[in-house]
């Protein structure tokens, strides 16, 4: 009896071509859709659960994007208003405006003369007759400096000091409180979004893992036979990874629909709310990149869930 080791592999692997592999993937995809459609009720439930789990963190992400965009684009971006004395000479106003304009932290300087201030006041209040009775203009000239993007609270403080030291300045108002609140809210929303993304993402993984586990149980006999006829672990796992991806992406579609529905629902009241602050509603972020990212993330979570279920259940799979 010869017991020497053979020179060549006694069980060579048959290596299919690229086309054959592609066809194999297509076949598995067809089988996956067949399996999913056969259990449409369960599949819809899984999609809905995954969709709800993803909609909240994705919605919060969208909210965070919009808050950031809103604070960046806001007319009243961080800045300060300088009110001059009533008799302030034009030169003093022009000097401070020029000094402010030279600062790199300043994006824009706008000077509002006494006459412009009165005209604006009249426009808003509508008391032309009463105001006409005044002998002299009671409103001071003012100057508004807006911070350049990237400038911080320290720059604002420095500008305030510059204004206070200037001649004929009655009052300096640093307008940052409202914006700080918005920024704080944005920060809270971001952190909440990250936390919820982690929690609900885990939820999506668990939902998919459970569903894939059920799919594995339903096909256990087939898997045992596949293992017996020489299927590799990767081949046995593959259909379930497809299940996971389909469940995940399906959940992503539901999440996108829920977010879209949410936007429709809040659009009007939000528009009215922002209108009261003189701003137009311009929701951003719900675009192709967002939806594509949502689908990709959902698909990856689904595959992660499927992988976890397949590893757990298929590792001890034996035929008899």
């Amino acid at each position, binding site marked *: *009896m*010869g*017991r*020497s*080791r*053979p020179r060549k592999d*006694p*069980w*060579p*692997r*048959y*290596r*299919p*071509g690229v086309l*054959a*592999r592609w*066809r*194999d993937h297509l*076949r598995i995809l067809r089988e996956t859709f067949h399996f999913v459609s056969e259990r449409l009720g369960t599949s819809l439930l899984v999609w809905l659960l995954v969709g709800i789990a993803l909609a909240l963190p994705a919605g919060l992400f969208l909210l965070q994007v919009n808050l950031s965009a809103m604070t960046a684009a806001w007319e009243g971006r961080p800045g300060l208003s300088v009110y001059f004395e009533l008799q302030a000479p034009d030169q003093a106003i022009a000097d401070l405006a020029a000094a402010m304009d030279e600062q790199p932290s300043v994006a824009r300087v706008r000077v509002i003369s006494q006459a412009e201030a009165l005209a604006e006041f009249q426009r808003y209040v509508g008391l032309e007759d009463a105001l006409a009775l005044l002998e002299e203009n009671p409103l001071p000239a003012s100057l508004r400096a807006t911070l350049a993007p990237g400038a911080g609270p320290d720059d604002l403080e420095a500008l305030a000091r510059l204004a206070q030291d200037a001649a004929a300045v009655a009052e300096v108002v640093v307008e940052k409180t409202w914006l700080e609140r918005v920024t704080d809210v944005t920060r809270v929303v971001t952190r909440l979004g990250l936390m919820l993304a982690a929690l609900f993402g885990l939820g999506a993984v668990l939902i998919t893992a459970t569903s894939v586990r059920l799919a594995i149980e339903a096909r256990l*006999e*087939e898997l*045992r*036979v*596949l*293992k*017996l*006829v*020489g*299927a*590799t*672990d990767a*081949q046995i796992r593959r259909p379930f990874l497809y299940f996971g991806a389909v469940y995940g992406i399906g959940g992503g579609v539901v999440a996108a629909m829920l977010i879209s529905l949410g936007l429709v629902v809040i659009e009007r009241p939000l528009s009215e709310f922002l209108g009261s602050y003189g701003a137009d509603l311009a929701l951003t972020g719900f675009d192709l990149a967002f939806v594509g990212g949502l689908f990709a993330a959902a698909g990856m979570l689904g595959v992660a869930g499927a992988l976890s279920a397949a590893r757990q259940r298929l590792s001890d799979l*034996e*035929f*008899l």
Partner: protein
Amino acid sequence: MGQVEFLHVTRRFDNGQEALKELTASFEPGSMTFLTGHSGAGKSTFLKLLLCLDRPTRGQILVNGVNVAQLPPKRLAYYRQHLGAVFQDHHLLSQRSVFDNVALPLRVAGHRERDVARRVRAALSRVGLLSKESLFPRYLSTGEQQRVGIARAVVNRPKILLADEPTGNLDPELSRDIMQLFRQFHQVGTTVIVASHDRDLIESMGMRIIELAHGSIVSDRGPSERAEGAAVAEADGELHGP
């Protein structure tokens, strides 16, 4: 290539029971052998070990010189692609047609659909079921289901064909048909090992018979030895008479 060697193989279960004890046996390429013995003798354990569905506690199982008991998972899969296995209860997939059941090993191995169709039909033709390729297993008789199982086992042209009680559920006539099929595969060079407790049937096949009892070989007789044994038994019968 289909040489199989068991070298001092022992399989002890967790409860201390030994299904095989220091078993040593060799099977030449292209040979046909029957394993027999009472229930619990170790026949099924022997085949499971050869299929790597179980691992020996001690000893080596060499197939073409490689100890298959220590194959890593990926190579184990490729090894199984070169084996054929038939079981008493067929293990056919009820949701798939006869064609798809038989095609399974070829698709797993990654063959082209054109080759799959050609080879599946050849295998079905060999077991006489070509006309039933589109049926589902539940519409077939037990004997037909077993033949589908055999077609699935041989469609990949394995070098080694293993069968565990393949005629257990069949009547004597069908059992003989099934055994003749195994003999045909043996005649084309496949190493065939069949576990069966049907003594009359396997005696009638005129092949090597290994008898197991309590995990050990109690007799190992080739065709010629069996003829001598039969003659001795006959003479013994004549001598001792009723």
